[in-house]
């Protein structure tokens, strides 16, 4: 008899809601986080598109110069080869500026806005 009563009490109690709570604006916060997360991916994509476009344009210009003025292209290549360190530095710096502008700053801005 006692067993049946205990089972009855337990059956009723296991359906009692636990004490875990989320902030009232949780859904809004999640949506903002998702938007920020998706935006970051879009920004990264945009950065890669831009970098690809720049590289393609440079390659196309080199090709045109190769056909029009082979000498100039060879001189330019020689210049790059003999000054590879500063040239690499300039390319990396420009790339870094583009990355910071298109991805990092936007990410930091959206995070500070969310906080």
């Amino acid at each position, binding site marked *: 008899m*006692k*067993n049946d*009563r*205990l*089972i009855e*009490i*337990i*059956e*009723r*109690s*296991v*359906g*009692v*809601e*636990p*004490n*875990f*709570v*989320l*902030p009232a604006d*949780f*859904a*809004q*916060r*999640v*949506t903002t*986080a*998702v*938007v920020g*997360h998706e935006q970051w991916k879009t920004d990264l994509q945009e950065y890669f598109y831009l970098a690809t476009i720049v590289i393609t344009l440079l390659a196309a210009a080199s090709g045109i110069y190769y056909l029009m003025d082979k000498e100039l292209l060879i001189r330019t290549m020689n210049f790059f080869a003999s000054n590879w360190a500063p040239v690499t530095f300039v390319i990396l710096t420009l790339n870094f500026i583009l990355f910071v502008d298109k991805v990092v700053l936007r990410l930091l801005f959206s995070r500070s806005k969310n906080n």
Partner: protein
Amino acid sequence: MNDTELISQILNGNMNAFTFLVNRYQKLVVYITGRLIQRQDELEDVCQEVFIKVYQNLGKYRNECKLSTWIATIAYNTGINYLRKFKKFDEVNPDDSVALRNLSDFGSKNYETADLHRYIRDQIELLPVHYRTVITLFHLQEFSYQEIEQITGMPEGTVKSYLFRAKALLKEKLKDIVDENSLKMVEEISNEK
């Protein structure tokens, strides 16, 4: 708005529909992850992670199960991963005698029904992780055995066994602390209400 419409709205980029989905399923997610991780301070981050995964994988949802089952699966896996990450997941084969010793005593001699319900709810938090998970899914969220099998990956027989053993543990503990007289009192209070 039904779940199918909601999903198609979200996939079309309607973020208000996503907010609506979070509102609809946040209780389900918070109860499952809460019972698993048992840390209020981490709960919001874990729940947020669950809904971000829901958003990112919504395109892969194929209506093979209810949306609530699919979301519960993500919540369960995220909670289990959290426990594994912090090395708190060592209850593969729960020892019922140890689990029984872990349960706490009833704090007072006042057996108001609400107190007893609260006491049992607190004892559920002290049960091994698989026991409290199946109790939450079966009794609180009213999933079927098949759905719980789908969510947790545990065979149906194991789910039934954990459910039975969890209730047996609670009953064993209650037996020690509640005598015949107090049971009558609880019943009278319940009937009066």
